[in-house]
């Protein structure tokens, strides 16, 4: 059985062109969790061994800590995150009226810092931004993803979908070639998932730390030998939005653990 999977991985690139691009119907959507081995699943399931919980704990401390020249903490406006932030991450990226664009949860945190705390933005992938984002998203664990339901987001979802379907890089592969057409097969030793972003920010064993969906997208782009979009670029935000809308109905898992 395992040997058979290795063969499937080896023949994947040979058979890909013959397959047709197709989107995954809602009842066939599966979290990356379902593709992992039992040991990695166990690491996610138990909060006392899930290394992502270290970041959630750090985020909880930051939530209550005053910051910026306004000397305000997140908690001063939003109160107890367990109630005020429940379900919020399941709706992100969300439409931002001021800019007329979708913003990610990371960007929303930095907008809050700029507008309400008069604080400097936290750099992308910095420990503090990941910790705050993990703490906020953790409040939505188990909540079904509904991102993209806002009609104002429609053109941006379309943009993200186009990017998902567009071949790129020296390997000339689109996201869809692996994650719609070939999930369940293997690439080298690793299972190909559907690319459902249910647990970000998540702890990736490869990274040995927590990371954002944008980091994951950028490493996929390096994987197909394409120039990765910058953190926070409209393209990455649109892709993130499309992926979240594509995962509609799946429960949030933050902080997930992935290989």
């Amino acid at each position: 059985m395992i040997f058979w999977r290795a063969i499937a991985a080896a023949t994947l690139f040979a058979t890909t062109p013959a397959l047709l691009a197709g989107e995954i119907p809602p009842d066939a959507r599966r979290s990356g969790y379902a593709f992992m081995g039992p040991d990695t699943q166990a690491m996610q399931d138990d909060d006392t061994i899930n290394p992502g919980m270290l970041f959630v704990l750090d985020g909880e401390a930051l939530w209550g800590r005053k910051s910026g020249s306004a000397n305000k903490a997140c908690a001063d406006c939003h109160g107890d995150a367990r109630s005020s932030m429940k379900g919020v991450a399941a709706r992100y990226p969300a439409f931002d009226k001021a800019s007329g664009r979708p913003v990610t949860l990371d960007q929303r945190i930095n907008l809050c810092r700029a507008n309400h705390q008069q604080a400097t933005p936290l750099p992308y992938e910095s420990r503090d931004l990941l910790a705050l984002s993990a703490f906020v998203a953790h409040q939505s664990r188990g909540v079904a993803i509904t991102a993209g339901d806002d009609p104002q987001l429609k053109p941006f979802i379309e943009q993200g979908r186009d990017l998902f379907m567009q071949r790129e890089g020296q390997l000339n592969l689109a996201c869809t070639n692996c994650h719609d057409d070939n999930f369940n097969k293997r690439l080298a030793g690793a299972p190909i998932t559907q690319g459902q972003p249910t647990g970000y920010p998540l702890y990736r064993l490869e990274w040995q730390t927590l990371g954002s969906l944008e980091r994951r997208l950028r490493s996929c782009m390096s994987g197909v030998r394409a120039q990765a979009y910058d953190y926070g670029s409209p393209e990455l935000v649109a892709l993130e939005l499309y992926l979240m809308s594509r995962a509609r109905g799946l429960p949030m898992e933050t902080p997930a653990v992935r290989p």
Partner: protein
Amino acid sequence: MQTTRRQFLSLAGGVTAAGTIPIVTLRPLEATPAMLNTAIRNVVGEAPIRTGKVKLDIPPLVENGNTVPMTVSVASPMTADDYVKSIHVFNEKNPQPNIGNFHLGPSSGRAQVSTRIRLADTQKVVAIARLSDDTFWQVAADIVVTLAACTEEVN
């Protein structure tokens, strides 16, 4: 990342061997490389090492070698005069042969330790327990580390 023919063959070969034989295979210490042997002798000295009593729980096929869950347990009553003093874990192919030394005592109640380790490659892991009578017991396991696809550029 595309799998080359050579990578595929070595991967398939490794996986097949692992798939058909239960993974925990015992081999005499003489078969292990010099560095591993030296590291073990630094702990054990010239004392004989017997096989048995120690159980090494580790996935035979790991999804990422950076974080591999591992549990070592030793069959011992853990009483004041019959207990496990220490557990030592070694590997064959990382840059260094030592993984960890764990010091227990009769108040431990159960001789069992879990942690998460790094395995740079498909290799053997050896766990050795020192009992209160200063006898040494060992177990070894072979672990297949699969190649990750689309990893980030190494920095």
